[in-house]
Protein backbone atom coordinates (compact mmCIF):
# COMPACT_ATOMS: atom_id res chain seq x y z
CA UNK A 1 0.00 0.00 0.00
CA UNK A 2 1.34 3.45 -0.89
CA UNK A 3 2.71 5.38 2.07
CA UNK A 4 0.26 7.54 4.00
CA UNK A 5 2.61 10.49 3.52
CA UNK A 6 2.53 12.55 0.32
CA UNK A 7 5.40 15.05 0.24
CA UNK A 8 6.72 17.65 -2.17
CA UNK A 9 10.13 19.10 -1.43
CA UNK A 10 11.50 21.60 -3.93
CA UNK A 11 14.71 23.57 -3.55
CA UNK A 12 15.63 26.79 -5.34
CA UNK A 13 19.30 26.27 -4.51
CA UNK A 14 19.25 27.88 -1.07
CA UNK A 15 15.79 27.39 0.44
CA UNK A 16 13.89 24.13 0.31
CA UNK A 17 10.09 24.39 0.47
CA UNK A 18 8.39 21.32 1.94
CA UNK A 19 4.69 20.45 1.68
CA UNK A 20 3.27 17.29 3.24
CA UNK A 21 -0.20 15.76 3.20
CA UNK A 22 -0.77 12.76 5.46
CA UNK A 23 -3.62 10.31 5.20
CA UNK A 24 -4.94 10.02 8.76
CA UNK A 25 -8.40 10.22 10.31
CA UNK A 26 -7.31 12.56 13.16
CA UNK A 27 -10.29 11.54 15.32
CA UNK A 28 -10.81 13.88 18.27
CA UNK A 29 -12.55 11.31 20.48
CA UNK A 30 -15.48 13.70 20.82
CA UNK A 31 -17.40 12.60 17.71
CA UNK A 32 -20.12 9.94 17.65
CA UNK A 33 -20.47 7.46 14.80
CA UNK A 34 -23.88 6.94 13.14
CA UNK A 35 -24.88 4.33 15.73
CA UNK A 36 -24.19 6.75 18.56
CA UNK A 37 -20.95 5.41 20.06
CA UNK A 38 -17.99 7.77 20.59
CA UNK A 39 -15.23 7.26 18.03
CA UNK A 40 -12.08 6.90 20.17
CA UNK A 41 -9.38 9.57 19.87
CA UNK A 42 -6.88 8.63 17.20
CA UNK A 43 -4.58 11.42 16.03
CA UNK A 44 -0.98 12.00 14.98
CA UNK A 45 0.97 13.41 17.91
CA UNK A 46 4.42 13.97 16.49
CA UNK A 47 5.63 14.48 12.94
CA UNK A 48 9.36 14.80 12.31
CA UNK A 49 11.22 16.02 9.24
CA UNK A 50 14.90 15.02 9.21
CA UNK A 51 17.46 16.06 6.63
CA UNK A 52 21.19 15.30 6.56
CA UNK A 53 20.92 13.77 10.03
CA UNK A 54 19.30 16.82 11.64
CA UNK A 55 15.65 17.33 12.70
CA UNK A 56 14.82 20.42 10.67
CA UNK A 57 11.19 20.58 11.72
CA UNK A 58 9.17 18.79 14.39
CA UNK A 59 5.39 19.13 14.72
CA UNK A 60 3.55 18.35 17.94
CA UNK A 61 -0.14 17.98 17.04
CA UNK A 62 -3.32 17.88 19.08
CA UNK A 63 -6.84 16.83 18.14
CA UNK A 64 -7.53 20.19 16.47
CA UNK A 65 -5.46 19.37 13.41
CA UNK A 66 -7.67 18.64 10.39
CA UNK A 67 -8.29 15.18 8.95
CA UNK A 68 -5.70 14.23 6.28
CA UNK A 69 -3.40 16.87 7.87
CA UNK A 70 -1.33 19.23 5.72
CA UNK A 71 1.74 21.26 6.67
CA UNK A 72 4.08 23.54 4.75
CA UNK A 73 7.44 25.06 5.82
CA UNK A 74 10.82 25.93 4.37
CA UNK A 75 14.41 25.47 5.52
CA UNK A 76 17.93 26.26 4.47
CA UNK A 77 21.00 24.10 4.30
CA UNK A 78 19.87 21.37 1.91
CA UNK A 79 20.35 20.97 -1.80
CA UNK A 80 18.70 19.11 -4.69
CA UNK A 81 19.01 15.34 -4.33
CA UNK A 82 19.32 15.35 -0.53
CA UNK A 83 17.07 12.92 1.32
CA UNK A 84 14.29 14.22 3.52
CA UNK A 85 13.01 11.64 6.02
CA UNK A 86 9.46 12.15 7.29
CA UNK A 87 7.95 10.08 10.08
CA UNK A 88 4.92 10.35 12.32
CA UNK A 89 3.60 8.57 15.42
CA UNK A 90 0.05 8.71 16.71
CA UNK A 91 -1.56 8.29 20.15
CA UNK A 92 -2.29 4.61 19.50
CA UNK A 93 1.33 3.76 18.73
CA UNK A 94 0.67 3.77 14.99
CA UNK A 95 3.39 5.24 12.78
CA UNK A 96 4.64 5.58 9.23
CA UNK A 97 7.76 6.91 7.61
CA UNK A 98 8.92 7.77 4.12
CA UNK A 99 11.93 9.32 2.47
CA UNK A 100 11.71 11.84 -0.34
CA UNK A 101 14.39 13.27 -2.58
CA UNK A 102 14.53 17.07 -2.69
CA UNK A 103 13.74 18.08 -6.26
Amino acid at each position, binding site marked *: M*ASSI*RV*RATSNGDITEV*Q*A*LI*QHSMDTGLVKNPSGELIPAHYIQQLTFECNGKDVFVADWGTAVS*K*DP*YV*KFSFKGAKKGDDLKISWTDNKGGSDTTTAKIA
Partner: protein
Amino acid sequence: MKARFSLLLGSLSAALVAFALTSPRVTAADKVDPVADAKAFQNFFFQKFPDVKHEDFVNGPYSMNADMKRQWQEKEEFPPYEFALDAGKEMFATPFKNGKTYADCFPNGGIGIRQNYPYFDGKEGKVVTLELALNRCREANGEQPYSYVKDEMASLTAYMAFTSRGKPMDIRIPDDPRALEAFENGKRYFYTRRGQLNFSCASCHVQSPGERIRAEVLAPALGILNAMPIYRSEWSGMGTISRRFVTCNSQTRAVPLAPQSDEYRDVEYFLSYVANGLPIAGPGARP
Protein backbone atom coordinates in the same frame (compact mmCIF):
# COMPACT_ATOMS: atom_id res chain seq x y z
CA MET B 1 -56.00 37.44 11.56
CA LYS B 2 -58.45 38.98 9.07
CA ALA B 3 -55.94 41.57 7.83
CA ARG B 4 -53.37 38.89 7.22
CA PHE B 5 -55.94 36.85 5.31
CA SER B 6 -56.81 39.68 2.97
CA LEU B 7 -53.11 40.35 2.45
CA LEU B 8 -52.72 36.69 1.51
CA LEU B 9 -55.65 36.96 -0.87
CA GLY B 10 -54.14 40.09 -2.42
CA SER B 11 -50.76 38.51 -3.07
CA LEU B 12 -52.53 35.42 -4.36
CA SER B 13 -54.37 37.35 -7.07
CA ALA B 14 -51.12 39.20 -7.93
CA ALA B 15 -49.43 35.85 -8.40
CA LEU B 16 -52.27 34.67 -10.61
CA VAL B 17 -51.97 37.76 -12.78
CA ALA B 18 -48.22 37.29 -13.08
CA PHE B 19 -48.76 33.67 -14.01
CA ALA B 20 -51.25 34.68 -16.68
CA LEU B 21 -48.70 37.05 -18.20
CA THR B 22 -46.11 34.37 -18.63
CA SER B 23 -48.55 31.75 -19.78
CA PRO B 24 -48.62 32.71 -23.52
CA ARG B 25 -44.98 31.58 -23.66
CA VAL B 26 -45.77 28.47 -21.63
CA THR B 27 -48.61 27.28 -23.76
CA ALA B 28 -46.68 27.86 -27.01
CA ALA B 29 -46.15 24.42 -28.45
CA ASP B 30 -43.08 23.27 -26.49
CA LYS B 31 -40.84 21.74 -29.11
CA VAL B 32 -37.79 20.51 -27.19
CA ASP B 33 -34.88 22.67 -28.37
CA PRO B 34 -31.74 21.84 -26.37
CA VAL B 35 -29.54 24.28 -28.32
CA ALA B 36 -31.82 27.22 -27.48
CA ASP B 37 -32.16 25.99 -23.88
CA ALA B 38 -28.38 25.79 -23.46
CA LYS B 39 -27.86 29.27 -24.93
CA ALA B 40 -30.57 30.78 -22.71
CA PHE B 41 -29.21 28.94 -19.66
CA GLN B 42 -25.64 30.16 -20.18
CA ASN B 43 -26.72 33.75 -21.00
CA PHE B 44 -28.82 33.87 -17.82
CA PHE B 45 -25.68 33.28 -15.73
CA PHE B 46 -23.35 35.38 -17.87
CA GLN B 47 -25.70 38.34 -17.48
CA LYS B 48 -26.48 37.72 -13.83
CA PHE B 49 -22.75 37.56 -12.98
CA PRO B 50 -21.07 39.72 -15.64
CA ASP B 51 -17.70 39.87 -13.86
CA VAL B 52 -17.36 36.11 -13.39
CA LYS B 53 -15.16 34.69 -16.14
CA HIS B 54 -17.12 32.09 -18.12
CA GLU B 55 -14.77 29.19 -17.33
CA ASP B 56 -14.79 30.15 -13.64
CA PHE B 57 -18.41 29.04 -13.21
CA VAL B 58 -17.18 25.43 -12.95
CA ASN B 59 -15.59 26.34 -9.59
CA GLY B 60 -19.03 26.53 -7.98
CA PRO B 61 -19.18 28.59 -4.78
CA TYR B 62 -15.61 29.80 -5.31
CA SER B 63 -16.72 31.72 -8.42
CA MET B 64 -19.18 33.53 -6.18
CA ASN B 65 -17.12 34.44 -3.11
CA ALA B 66 -13.60 35.88 -3.19
CA ASP B 67 -12.62 35.01 0.40
CA MET B 68 -13.69 31.40 -0.07
CA LYS B 69 -11.84 31.29 -3.41
CA ARG B 70 -8.61 32.27 -1.60
CA GLN B 71 -9.10 29.47 0.95
CA TRP B 72 -9.78 27.05 -1.88
CA GLN B 73 -6.71 28.05 -3.87
CA GLU B 74 -4.61 27.60 -0.76
CA LYS B 75 -5.96 24.05 -0.39
CA GLU B 76 -5.52 23.35 -4.10
CA GLU B 77 -1.73 23.49 -3.61
CA PHE B 78 -2.02 20.07 -2.00
CA PRO B 79 -5.70 19.14 -2.31
CA PRO B 80 -7.42 16.61 -0.04
CA TYR B 81 -8.60 14.55 -3.07
CA GLU B 82 -4.95 13.64 -3.77
CA PHE B 83 -5.48 10.24 -2.08
CA ALA B 84 -8.63 9.44 -4.07
CA LEU B 85 -6.79 10.38 -7.26
CA ASP B 86 -3.88 8.05 -6.51
CA ALA B 87 -6.24 5.26 -5.44
CA GLY B 88 -8.29 5.74 -8.65
CA LYS B 89 -5.19 5.60 -10.83
CA GLU B 90 -4.07 2.39 -9.14
CA MET B 91 -7.56 0.80 -9.37
CA PHE B 92 -7.88 1.80 -13.02
CA ALA B 93 -4.71 -0.08 -13.88
CA THR B 94 -5.40 -3.13 -11.70
CA PRO B 95 -6.73 -5.91 -13.96
CA PHE B 96 -9.96 -7.71 -13.12
CA LYS B 97 -9.89 -11.42 -12.25
CA ASN B 98 -10.30 -12.16 -15.94
CA GLY B 99 -7.21 -10.15 -16.79
CA LYS B 100 -9.04 -7.27 -18.51
CA THR B 101 -8.98 -3.70 -17.16
CA TYR B 102 -11.29 -0.68 -17.35
CA ALA B 103 -9.27 0.54 -20.33
CA ASP B 104 -10.79 -2.27 -22.39
CA CYS B 105 -14.31 -0.98 -21.72
CA PHE B 106 -13.83 2.62 -22.69
CA PRO B 107 -12.91 4.49 -25.86
CA ASN B 108 -9.31 5.72 -25.85
CA GLY B 109 -8.61 3.41 -22.91
CA GLY B 110 -10.76 5.62 -20.69
CA ILE B 111 -8.19 8.44 -20.76
CA GLY B 112 -9.41 11.98 -21.43
CA ILE B 113 -13.01 11.02 -22.23
CA ARG B 114 -14.94 12.24 -19.15
CA GLN B 115 -16.14 15.34 -21.09
CA ASN B 116 -18.33 13.12 -23.31
CA TYR B 117 -20.24 11.61 -20.40
CA PRO B 118 -23.15 11.18 -19.95
CA TYR B 119 -24.09 10.11 -23.47
CA PHE B 120 -27.34 8.85 -24.96
CA ASP B 121 -27.20 5.13 -25.79
CA GLY B 122 -29.27 4.53 -28.94
CA LYS B 123 -29.53 0.77 -28.35
CA GLU B 124 -30.71 1.09 -24.79
CA GLY B 125 -32.69 4.25 -25.53
CA LYS B 126 -31.45 5.81 -22.28
CA VAL B 127 -28.75 8.11 -20.92
CA VAL B 128 -25.60 6.32 -19.74
CA THR B 129 -23.50 8.14 -17.14
CA LEU B 130 -19.80 7.55 -16.39
CA GLU B 131 -20.60 5.94 -13.03
CA LEU B 132 -23.09 3.57 -14.69
CA ALA B 133 -20.62 2.69 -17.48
CA LEU B 134 -17.92 1.90 -14.88
CA ASN B 135 -20.20 -0.48 -13.00
CA ARG B 136 -21.38 -2.09 -16.23
CA CYS B 137 -17.74 -2.61 -17.17
CA ARG B 138 -17.15 -4.32 -13.82
CA GLU B 139 -20.19 -6.56 -14.21
CA ALA B 140 -19.25 -7.41 -17.81
CA ASN B 141 -15.93 -8.64 -16.46
CA GLY B 142 -17.43 -10.75 -13.68
CA GLU B 143 -16.77 -8.28 -10.87
CA GLN B 144 -19.12 -6.94 -8.18
CA PRO B 145 -20.46 -3.44 -8.98
CA TYR B 146 -19.33 -0.65 -6.62
CA SER B 147 -21.76 1.44 -4.56
CA TYR B 148 -22.54 4.65 -6.44
CA VAL B 149 -22.08 6.78 -3.34
CA LYS B 150 -18.93 5.29 -1.80
CA ASP B 151 -15.20 5.96 -2.18
CA GLU B 152 -14.27 3.33 -4.79
CA MET B 153 -16.59 4.84 -7.43
CA ALA B 154 -15.43 8.33 -6.44
CA SER B 155 -11.77 7.35 -6.83
CA LEU B 156 -12.35 5.88 -10.30
CA THR B 157 -14.35 8.87 -11.55
CA ALA B 158 -11.79 11.21 -9.91
CA TYR B 159 -8.98 9.67 -11.96
CA MET B 160 -11.01 9.69 -15.21
CA ALA B 161 -12.05 13.30 -14.61
CA PHE B 162 -8.42 14.23 -13.89
CA THR B 163 -7.36 12.85 -17.28
CA SER B 164 -9.88 15.24 -18.92
CA ARG B 165 -9.04 18.35 -16.90
CA GLY B 166 -9.37 21.52 -18.97
CA LYS B 167 -11.15 19.85 -21.87
CA PRO B 168 -14.47 21.58 -22.66
CA MET B 169 -17.63 19.65 -21.74
CA ASP B 170 -18.83 18.06 -24.97
CA ILE B 171 -22.21 16.35 -24.58
CA ARG B 172 -24.05 15.44 -27.75
CA ILE B 173 -27.81 14.92 -28.19
CA PRO B 174 -28.45 12.63 -31.19
CA ASP B 175 -31.40 13.33 -33.45
CA ASP B 176 -33.52 10.76 -31.62
CA PRO B 177 -36.88 11.64 -30.03
CA ARG B 178 -36.00 9.49 -26.99
CA ALA B 179 -32.83 11.55 -26.45
CA LEU B 180 -34.82 14.77 -26.66
CA GLU B 181 -37.34 13.27 -24.22
CA ALA B 182 -34.50 12.38 -21.79
CA PHE B 183 -33.17 15.93 -22.02
CA GLU B 184 -36.64 17.36 -21.37
CA ASN B 185 -37.20 14.92 -18.50
CA GLY B 186 -33.93 16.07 -16.95
CA LYS B 187 -34.92 19.70 -17.37
CA ARG B 188 -38.32 19.00 -15.80
CA TYR B 189 -36.64 17.29 -12.81
CA PHE B 190 -34.28 20.26 -12.40
CA TYR B 191 -37.10 22.79 -12.14
CA THR B 192 -39.62 20.63 -10.19
CA ARG B 193 -40.12 21.55 -6.51
CA ARG B 194 -39.94 18.63 -4.12
CA GLY B 195 -39.66 17.75 -0.45
CA GLN B 196 -41.36 19.38 2.50
CA LEU B 197 -39.12 22.44 2.04
CA ASN B 198 -40.70 22.72 -1.44
CA PHE B 199 -37.39 23.50 -3.19
CA SER B 200 -36.37 22.56 -6.70
CA CYS B 201 -32.72 22.42 -7.80
CA ALA B 202 -33.38 25.81 -9.43
CA SER B 203 -34.68 27.38 -6.20
CA CYS B 204 -31.12 27.28 -4.84
CA HIS B 205 -28.82 27.05 -7.88
CA VAL B 206 -30.63 29.41 -10.28
CA GLN B 207 -32.44 31.88 -8.06
CA SER B 208 -29.81 32.40 -5.39
CA PRO B 209 -26.28 31.25 -6.33
CA GLY B 210 -23.67 33.19 -4.36
CA GLU B 211 -26.04 33.61 -1.45
CA ARG B 212 -25.84 31.52 1.71
CA ILE B 213 -28.28 28.82 2.73
CA ARG B 214 -27.40 28.43 6.37
CA ALA B 215 -23.65 28.31 6.25
CA GLU B 216 -23.03 27.26 2.68
CA VAL B 217 -22.55 29.54 -0.32
CA LEU B 218 -24.69 28.19 -3.16
CA ALA B 219 -23.03 27.20 -6.42
CA PRO B 220 -24.42 28.40 -9.77
CA ALA B 221 -26.16 25.63 -11.73
CA LEU B 222 -24.01 26.42 -14.78
CA GLY B 223 -21.08 23.99 -14.77
CA ILE B 224 -22.14 22.53 -11.42
CA LEU B 225 -21.13 18.99 -12.48
CA ASN B 226 -17.90 19.95 -14.25
CA ALA B 227 -15.78 19.49 -11.13
CA MET B 228 -17.30 16.21 -10.07
CA PRO B 229 -16.43 14.04 -8.16
CA ILE B 230 -15.72 16.39 -5.26
CA TYR B 231 -13.97 16.08 -1.92
CA ARG B 232 -16.32 17.83 0.51
CA SER B 233 -14.80 19.03 3.78
CA GLU B 234 -18.26 18.63 5.27
CA TRP B 235 -18.27 14.91 4.39
CA SER B 236 -14.50 14.84 4.95
CA GLY B 237 -14.56 12.45 2.04
CA MET B 238 -15.19 12.09 -1.70
CA GLY B 239 -18.64 12.48 -3.22
CA THR B 240 -19.84 11.20 -6.58
CA ILE B 241 -22.58 12.86 -8.61
CA SER B 242 -24.98 10.20 -7.27
CA ARG B 243 -24.09 11.02 -3.68
CA ARG B 244 -24.60 14.74 -4.32
CA PHE B 245 -28.05 14.20 -5.88
CA VAL B 246 -29.15 11.88 -3.05
CA THR B 247 -28.00 14.25 -0.28
CA CYS B 248 -29.54 17.29 -2.00
CA ASN B 249 -32.88 15.47 -2.12
CA SER B 250 -32.83 14.53 1.55
CA GLN B 251 -31.83 18.11 2.49
CA THR B 252 -35.16 19.31 1.03
CA ARG B 253 -36.81 16.41 2.95
CA ALA B 254 -37.60 14.52 -0.24
CA VAL B 255 -36.99 10.80 -0.14
CA PRO B 256 -34.12 10.23 -2.62
CA LEU B 257 -34.57 7.85 -5.55
CA ALA B 258 -32.17 4.95 -6.06
CA PRO B 259 -28.80 6.17 -7.43
CA GLN B 260 -28.68 6.12 -11.25
CA SER B 261 -32.50 6.18 -11.49
CA ASP B 262 -33.72 7.53 -14.84
CA GLU B 263 -34.48 10.95 -13.34
CA TYR B 264 -30.92 11.30 -12.01
CA ARG B 265 -29.39 10.15 -15.30
CA ASP B 266 -31.58 12.60 -17.23
CA VAL B 267 -30.92 15.59 -14.95
CA GLU B 268 -27.16 14.85 -15.25
CA TYR B 269 -27.63 14.78 -19.05
CA PHE B 270 -29.46 18.14 -18.95
CA LEU B 271 -26.97 19.83 -16.60
CA SER B 272 -23.94 18.56 -18.52
CA TYR B 273 -25.37 19.54 -21.93
CA VAL B 274 -26.15 23.12 -20.90
CA ALA B 275 -22.55 23.39 -19.61
CA ASN B 276 -21.08 22.45 -23.01
CA GLY B 277 -17.93 24.44 -23.70
CA LEU B 278 -17.04 24.97 -20.05
CA PRO B 279 -13.88 23.11 -18.93
CA ILE B 280 -13.80 19.87 -16.93
CA ALA B 281 -12.36 20.70 -13.49
CA GLY B 282 -12.68 17.40 -11.69
CA PRO B 283 -11.86 16.12 -9.16
CA GLY B 284 -12.79 19.17 -7.12
CA ALA B 285 -12.63 20.28 -3.48
CA ARG B 286 -15.65 21.93 -1.89
CA PRO B 287 -16.57 23.21 1.59
